[in-house]
């Protein structure tokens, strides 16, 4: 038993008995203390048993905000070349809704080269040379689809299972279902490169779940966590004195009124104090070896996706359950020819380095890595002049077919799952709805998505709403 806890238990018990004047309550009191000090306190986040044996214990979710073009990265469609610049087939647009495309848009083939990689021969674009090097570790799902075709609703749909605000995200569901394995860090951490996604902090808010399950944003500039640092002029020793006083007074209050919430609060103050050390230690990547830094392309002191990938490894190493990386600026309505390569350069080395590093440290087996956007992009070019002139084209939002990849954590490596038609427009086989993806993620974590429910406003809510099937083909 921690000496503090022993002390607390003793003090509380004595005062409590004195105040309540009850001898007979001693047994019940012991139960109270046992519950409140050692169970109730961390109960909201204590590690909990999954529904069945998990394959993954942790998740790293790499969200490319804005939606990368699957047709230029993973879903190679040589047939598009023959139609390049020609009006798209009528059935592509009949009865369909697009965010921006109007009139009769033209087909745009990819301007990038694809090659086969690894034993699996996965087709990956030249824009992702490092990722191509770990082709045999990843499962490429080319048949994702979603319901929403605007950014904020689609981001909410992907993470919370619903296209409007108010519901908890996958990270909150996972910590609600499984709790935390680290007593000194939050169970659910968010890292960001570039501006905040369109849906804002709602993406990692805990919705109607208790806020203990919300994602905590770790920032690479300013305080790593809001309000983490002591105010100016307050040394750690000062802080400890204040905390000790708060604890003594809270103990006295606990002894007086017996509310287990007070015991919880005492323990949360201790966790806060530990976070003041553990978070800066975690965020400091300067002590990583030069080889490791090079593997990711990380540079200490810089804010980058590569650094965030390295931080993600450091977080899961410490038992953080869910780590989400949001990387902005993938919304390439135009200039895809220059902007997509630039963005790929931002992420390729970092994410491939992450997969390699997890693997070499034996973490990949039980860490699930997911990469993708909130939807895909059209095989039709978006020309934005409004005058019928195609200048520096890009692609519009496409909800009906796109690509994500997964690695580790019980996912079969070196496979591809699902396929689109010849023009990459519609799904030809094995469709995977984002609900199916979420059901699968929970399944890998040992959670049955139909049983992980929370009663709110009269309904048993689930991450997958009333949908979702586990994608068996992805399971190792």
């Amino acid at each position, binding site marked *: 038993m921690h000496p503090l806890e022993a002390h607390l238990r003793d003090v509380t018990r004595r005062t409590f008995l004195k105040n309540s004047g009850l001898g007979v309550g001693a047994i019940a009191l012991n139960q109270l203390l046992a519950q409140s000090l050692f169970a109730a306190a961390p109960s909201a986040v204590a590690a909990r048993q999954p529904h069945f044996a998990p394959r993954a214990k942790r998740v790293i979710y790499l969200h490319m905000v804005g939606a990368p073009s699957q047709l230029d990265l993973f879903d190679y469609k040589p047939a598009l070349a023959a139609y390049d610049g020609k009006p798209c087939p009528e059935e592509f647009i009949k009865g369909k809704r697009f965010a921006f495309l109007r009139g009769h848009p033209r087909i745009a083939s990819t301007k990038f080269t694809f090659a086969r990689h690894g034993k699996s021969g996965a087709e990956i674009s030249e824009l992702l040379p490092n990722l191509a090097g770990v082709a045999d570790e990843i499962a490429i799902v080319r048949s994702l689809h979603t319901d929403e075709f605007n950014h904020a*609703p689609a981001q909410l749909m992907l993470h919370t299972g619903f296209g*409007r605000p108010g519901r908890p995200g996958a990270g909150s569901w996972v910590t609600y279902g499984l709790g935390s394995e680290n007593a000194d860090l939050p169970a659910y951490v968010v890292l960001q490169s570039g501006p905040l996604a*369109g849906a*804002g902090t709602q993406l990692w808010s805990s919705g109607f779940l208790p806020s203990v399950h*919300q994602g905590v944003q770790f920032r690479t500039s300013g305080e790593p966590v809001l309000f983490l640092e002591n105010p100016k002029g307050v040394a750690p020793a000062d802080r400890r004195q204040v905390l000790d006083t708060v604890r003594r007074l809270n103990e006295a209050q606990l002894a007086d009124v*017996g509310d287990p919430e007070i015991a919880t609060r005492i323990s949360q103050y201790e966790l806060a104090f530990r976070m003041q050390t553990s978070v800066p230690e975690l965020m400091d990547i300067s002590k990583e070896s030069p080889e490791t830094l090079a593997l990711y392309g990380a540079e200490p002191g810089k804010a980058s996706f590569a650094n965030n990938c390295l931080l993600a490894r450091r977080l899961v190493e410490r038992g953080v359950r869910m780590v989400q990386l949001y990387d902005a600026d993938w*919304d390439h309505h135009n200039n895809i020819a220059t902007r997509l390569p630039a963005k790929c350069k931002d992420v390729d080395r970092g994410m491939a380095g992450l997969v390699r590093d997890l693997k070499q440290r034996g973490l990949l087996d039980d860490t699930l890595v997911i990469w993708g956007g909130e939807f895909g992009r059209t095989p039709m070019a978006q020309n934005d002049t409004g005058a019928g002139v195609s200048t520096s084209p890009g692609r519009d939002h496409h909800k009906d077919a796109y690509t994500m990849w997964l690695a580790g954590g019980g996912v079969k490596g070196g496979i591809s799952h699902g396929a689109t038609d010849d023009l990459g427009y519609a799904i030809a086989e094995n469709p995977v709805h984002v609900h199916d993806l979420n059901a699968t993620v929970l399944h890998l974590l040992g959670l049955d998505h139909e049983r992980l429910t929370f009663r709110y*406003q*009269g309904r048993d809510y689930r991450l997958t709403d009333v949908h979702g099937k586990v994608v068996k083909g992805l399971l190792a």
Partner: protein
Amino acid sequence: MLTLSARRRALLASFAALSLSAAALAAEPSVDFARDIQPILAQRCYDCHGREDNKGGLGLTSRTQGLRGGKSGLPALVPGSADKSEIYQRVISPHDDEAMPQKGDRLKPAEIALLKRWIDEGAAWPEDLKHWAYVAPVRPPVPALGRRNSAPGNPIDAFVVARLAQENLARSPEVDRPRWLRRVSLDLIGLPPTPAEVATFVADIAPGAHERVVDRLLASPHYGEKWARPWLDLARYADSHGFQRDDLRESWPYRDWVVRAMNADLPFDQFTIMQIAGDLLPGADDKKNPDPLIATGFHRAAPTNVEAGTDQEEGRVNQVIDRVNTTGTVWLGSTLECAQCHNHKYDPFSQKDYYQLFAYFNQTERETAFATARATATLAFTGPFVTLPDTANDARRAEIGLRLKKIDDDIAAATARIRADLPAWEETARAALADAPQSHALEVAEFSSSEGSPHRVLADKSVLLVDDVPDKDTYTVTVKTKLTGITGLKLEALTDRSLPGNGPGRGDAARPNFVLNTFAVTAAKAGGEAVPLKFVRTAHSFAQASFSSANLIAPGNTKGWAISPQFGRDQWVTFELPAAIGAAEGTTLVFTMAHTLGAGRSIGRFRLSAITGEVGAKAVPADVAAALRVEPAQRTAEQTDAVVAHVVAQDAKIAALRQSRTKTEQEFAKIAGPRTLVMRELAEPRMTSVLKRGNFLDPGDRVEPGTPEHLHAGPRGGNRLDLARWLVSRDNPLVARVTVNRWWQEFFGHGLVRTPEDFGVKGEAPTHPELLDWLAVELMENGWSMKRVHRLIALSATYRQSSRLTPELLARDDQNRLLARGPRFRLEAEAIRDNALAIAGLLSPKLGGPPVRPYQPPGLWDAKVGGDRVTYEMSAGEDAYRRGLYTVWKRGSPYPSFMNFDATGRGACTVRRSRSNTPLQALTLLNDPVYVEAAAALAKRVTQELPDATDDARLRHAFGLCVARPPAAVELEALRHLLAQQRAAKDDPAAWQAVASALLNLDETITKN
């Protein structure tokens, strides 16, 4: 009409959820269907065998269905024999493939035992049984109590004590006066009592002291501020749209109306009617009393998706859905949303019912529109609003209006004069102009933005940037021209209605400046190499101090060209070439225009032209020159207009008038009266259909407005006003119960029904059904007065109990369902800050007004995809210390310390916030500069208020300010110890600040005790 016995049974059913001990259950004589069995069926079976789904052909919502059984042909129920009943066999089956329920956990042994006994006893199933919540409440008799209990305070206590007596429990002792005063102050006005108030109350030994306190608090203007908070959670009130384009919007007068309505104790039925349908009330358009319109802001608070590319009809339908669901939650305590896609599985709401309600709300206009007719991707936030009377500025607005009119008249007169003088002007100017240098707008072949900003090329060959504004942006423009003799180039920065503040910059509406940092051009002859062009000089229409266009051609230029404060009008710059360029076979020009300052200071609309002739003189647009060559009588209307427009544009007087107009407009905007979003019924009704599976693209049968069939009788047809009146009808079994239950929740931490958002069969039954009904009737029969009910609760002996949790109570009733003790809960997010500021003496008592921006860490609003750029500028003066109610609520980035204490983004209706206990809360109270400042202020306050006192006296004072009671010896000792420790290393103010910080961090300080 239900019989009284049915009502009694329904009430009895509500005891079912109260299984405090196995012993209590075992003591029940026989199984009662409503109390014991129906909840099991509802909770465990109705997902698949309810009103909607009949998996395996089996429904379990009536005895007949049970007797008939499902597809297997075996009866689910065989009265008298559980062993022969399929339902029983399935719940005990060890085989996974046939065990029930298939979804969710297995039944508990106690539930299985009940089911077996019920079937064995004959499976009694009263056919007229109606769920308790759908039977209108009738005032129950107040229990008469035996001698065993002391006299209760008011009828509330009689019900509570009667219930406790059943459990052989007694009430907790009365809480001491300071604690009660703090509790009731926090509950009624959301602020702690002052030391003087504590002293007065403790000394007030005359009868009625408690009543005097409660009446004082109910009369306080802060009462409405405290009680508006939970209501605004229901209303999902926020100051921004939500979603990607999360721009701020003005609706705060609605928030202030809620505060005023509560302070005035506006009867809850009126409060309801005004919010649902104030616009349809007689006299709604009385300009002197806009309250009925303002109140409709309730439903305008639904989030609006203004993201570019959104399907506007889908957005509109989603808002109507939100309005139906929110109405169901707030006034009916029912989850109607299930019926969006199919008939409700448990509760008596059909899909048709849902869309009949939908039809009432389907009659308002869409709240988005294309930003301009040209930019059909970008959306603007629209919809009706009302401008509030603002007598303070009415006179000034009238005066400015007159000035604007004068300017317009002057411009019109000057323009008319130009038209009249045109022949004379042409006489002298024509020859010169025809040979004057000309500008030729260049056709854009390619445009790209480094940040991928979408654009449109307009008919006048200008380029308009649309959609989100990146921080910095570099434009690359390629043009091809066959012009020869190009002596210079011209860049025009143009205004456009779609730009913030009309542009020409994109950054912000108040200062639509731009800073063009570099302007570089290469020229290539057909088949030749691109050569960078050099320029000898520039000229401009205007440049701001030290941002001359000359910077653009100066070596090592970094500053560039900018135009503050001459926004809102077209600007131009010309670049003179050392020698003419251009070849008949064609020249490709590539322009690179970099805006590197940040904050979106890039040009929003521009046009590039080539100049032929002498650059020094003012170049005439080529089309004007061409028009001038035509005899006036022969000119087309366009040509005449082009000439007039050109002359007007050259006219210095008109230019001055236009600039003065822009300035005057800005002056006007600054004192524009506040506006607020309202509902307005369409003139032509919109048709409503059932949406199959809730899909707005798949309409089914047409429906008319109407209320749910299984609730109390309501209008067929009609409008929102009829719906509103139906909601607060005395026959509505739900509204008063749902309302008093939410109030109870604010006082006691939990409602009498612990699922305040769900009074349906899957919700929890009330812990005190008769008390709930008594309060509901009390509300309805006393003019729907909220204050009256609050007074009753606050003055009850139940509320006056100590909150101390004894081991016995912990073992018997840790959740305090029986109300054997007083409430003890952490304060809500806003109240924690309000409380700290009040203790510190920093809190501003100012009521109402636009949202304020207290300190928050820098950068949280700056970097986000989508929407206007708004830098979070902290409010000045007392506005930084206003109550949390007034803090700006931006849905995509809400005030972080509130989020750490379980506030929500207000994206959806919230009936109860979670109440968590996390390390981030500790960090917030310890380190958020708001609390650091509060600690410093508290330390200062204590030393200033007791300048000559001892340490102990000051410690007592500080402690009292925080928790309204004197410290116990052990508490005082702990504080003395900290003070001594700190003094060893620090000066006195710092030492006292540490003490103050400790006090503000106490569990008791942030708890209603």
